[in-house]
């Protein structure tokens, strides 16, 4: 099949009056960044629509890349011709002729006249184009319901578009058009998916990761950097805050409150994330919580843990099943990294029976009894290292090691 262009369709944000131009700018920039590996592709903005001229690039490869663009609802590879009856018929005959018709094939033509001055109505066009096709290809047989081939024709003033497929995009809102939030990123399967869902809804996110060296390894930290790198493919670049959590976390051990350790730890994380959010001007905290998945994600736990911050906590996965989350993780490319077996701080010092129903008063009393907690939290914030990660950031080279890069590319 030879196509000339990709036709891009956008979703709900196009309805949002005043913000429309801001949204369009964001989506345009996002498309530009994902199409950077395809130098011949050319983005055209015309009559409030976006098209991508292929100029020889593969439509499949481009459509694959465009599936990363939030706000994009669907993509169609199209053939283009002038909006004149003769050339539409001629192009349609040639376009259908590129399909290999070895046996009887059912088909229909669906024309849409967007440009009303065009002399033939949509209905008329179905016949005017359908009849020459039937004459040219005797294998074709008209079938209105569920045909094997549906040739769609969209007649606009500037030109006419012919296409078969409508490839779904990811939808949502353009990148960063709905404000900024902090994502608590562990090394697990859920939090990267939550981050992606948040970005899809137009949130700009910054990642916050807690590490407890030497209880967690350098590899665990790199795993999170790699997850951030994968997510940055949807955002162009992402900030990752690496918070040293060892002192805070170990202060909860050995105080005789083992079953509350996770509750205390999660509350401390929220406090630190809240301080970082204030510094960065973020208005919410995004987590990968999924209701009932583990002890800290029961409703009672969410209630007690969530009270540690005044910011809204957004939980995109709260009602998702694990299988759905895994499927998304595979789709967005984070799954393989998430299942690497490096322990992160969320699984450290986990008691045999963590509480699923913590009591807020008890938790608050325990926290009040811990000396220097505020100072420890301040120190953790102060010790936070912030990295900017882009899709081409080289993480496995060990750049964060003080002895420089291990992987000498000359060897490979």
């Amino acid at each position, binding site marked *: 099949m030879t196509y000339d262009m990709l036709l891009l369709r956008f979703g709900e944000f196009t309805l949002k009056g005043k913000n429309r131009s801001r949204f369009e700018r964001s989506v345009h920039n996002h498309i530009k960044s994902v199409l950077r590996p395809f130098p011949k592709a050319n983005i055209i903005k015309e009559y409030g629509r976006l098209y991508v001229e292929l100029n020889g690039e593969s439509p499949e490869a481009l459509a694959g890349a465009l599936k990363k663009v939030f706000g994009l609802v669907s993509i169609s590879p199209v053939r283009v011709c002038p909006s004149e009856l003769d050339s539409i018929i001629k192009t349609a005959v040639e376009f259908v002729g590129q399909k290999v018709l070895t046996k009887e094939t059912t088909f229909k033509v669906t024309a849409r006249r967007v440009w009303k001055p065009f002399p033939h109505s949509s209905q008329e066009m179905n016949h005017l184009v359908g009849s020459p096709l039937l004459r040219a290809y005797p294998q074709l047989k008209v079938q209105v319901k569920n045909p094997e081939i549906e040739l769609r024709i969209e007649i606009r003033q500037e030109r006419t578009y012919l296409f078969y497929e409508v490839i779904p995009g990811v939808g949502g809102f353009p990148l960063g058009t709905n404000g900024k939030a902090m994502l608590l990123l562990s090394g697990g399967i859920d939090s990267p998916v939550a981050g992606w869902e948040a970005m899809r809804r137009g949130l700009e996110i910054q990642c916050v990761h807690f590490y407890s060296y030497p209880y967690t390894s350098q590899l665990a930290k790199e795993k999170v950097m790699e997850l951030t790198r994968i997510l940055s493919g949807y955002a162009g670049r992402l900030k990752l805050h690496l918070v040293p959590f060892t002192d805070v976390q170990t202060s909860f051990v050995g105080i005789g409150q083992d079953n509350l350790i996770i509750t205390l730890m999660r509350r401390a994380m929220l406090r630190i994330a809240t301080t970082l959010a204030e510094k960065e001007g973020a208005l919410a905290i995004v987590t990968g919580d999924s209701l009932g998945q583990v002890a800290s994600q029961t409703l009672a736990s969410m209630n007690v843990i969530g009270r540690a911050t005044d910011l809204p906590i957004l939980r995109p996965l709260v009602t998702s099943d694990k299988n759905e989350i895994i499927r998304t993780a595979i789709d967005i490319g984070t799954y393989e990294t998430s299942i690497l077996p490096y322990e992160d701080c969320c699984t450290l010092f986990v008691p045999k029976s963590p509480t699923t129903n913590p009591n807020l008063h008890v938790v608050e009393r325990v926290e009040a009894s811990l000396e220097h907690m505020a100072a420890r939290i301040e120190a953790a914030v102060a010790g936070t290292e912030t990295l900017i990660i882009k899709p081409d950031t080289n993480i*496995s080279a060990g750049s964060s090691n003080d002895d420089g890069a291990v992987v000498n590319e000359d060897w490979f």
Partner: protein
Amino acid sequence: MTLIYWDHAATTPPLEQVVDTMSEIMKMHYANPSALHRSGEAAGKLLKRAREVCAAALQVQPGEIVLTSGATESNNMAIKGAAMKYRSRGQHIITTGTEHPSVYECCKQLESLGWEVTYLPVDAEGIVDLAALAAAIRKDTVLVSIMHVNNEMGAISPLADIGRIVKERNPRTLLHVDGVQGFGKLPVELSAWQADLYSLSAHKFNGPRGMGLLYVKQGVQLFPILSGGSQESGHRAGTENVAGAVAMSKAMRLAQEGQPELHARLTEIRDILLREIRQIPGLELNSSERSAPHIVHFSCPGLKPEVMVHALEELGMLVSTKSACSSKLSEPSRVLLAMGKDAAHASSGIRISLGKEHQPEDAASLAQALRVVCGKLRPIMEREGQRE
């Protein structure tokens, strides 16, 4: 006298950069990649990068690459591993009569343990009979193992057709391709071939000895032949050869990048040899312009091939009888017999195999040496021929 080495199908000289990489890493990164300390981590990173580079050369995912000690191990791992893992699906395996011993003997071993093996016939050029393949695939066929390029006479298997036939007949049947002689010389298209398993040996493409890999398509499981630690995702226990893996990845990248150019160059030299050999009385070609570009194979009926090898050696030309793995035996070649050659042809095969460093002038020198040797040996060849 300078020696010209014509035995690249047996082993290739390692590239200098490959040897440098190997020695630098052996000195700097001797730590065990499974160790938790930073030296171990560093070694682990090198191994990870090596796997990525190997995977990129085959256009597959790094997780689909199992590092091995070479193609013999890869072939054993693929065939026995699949046979044992999927025993509940059936105990039928299909291969050809012209496979490398590391495939052929694996199948023989499985036969002795109760598996049923179909050995497909090949035509006069050594190409597998596709109709016979289609007819042989059954519901209980677990694996089809067919090589990309024959190591003895260079026949190229139509793998895209083979893959299509196998998957059409039984989508659950796995396809294993012994890719040893093809990689770096011919395009490799694992997805078009629908291959599930693919073996390589690094020393066949100017890489280090003792290093190879098996591509295991995602989702395919193998019963591990070497048990022990959980290295290589449990496919192969044993401390990883970090230096070997990195050196192999380099050789692989270079071989992949240089494939089209090498193919053109080898074809030119090969065509000179074919033209010359056709004109030498007493020599009969078993390979042709349709074979892989690095292998020229002929028989000298009536003569023990060792005699030819040693006579050429005296003139500075190092060639091989049959394949190196079986060249010490003086029985007729199983591969040539399968192609329908008679015993006189099958027990007098000589293989010339070309490599990167050869120039067209070398082919002229070799042709000259062949003419001299044949001129001297011809009377004996004819007498021996009559005695048979």
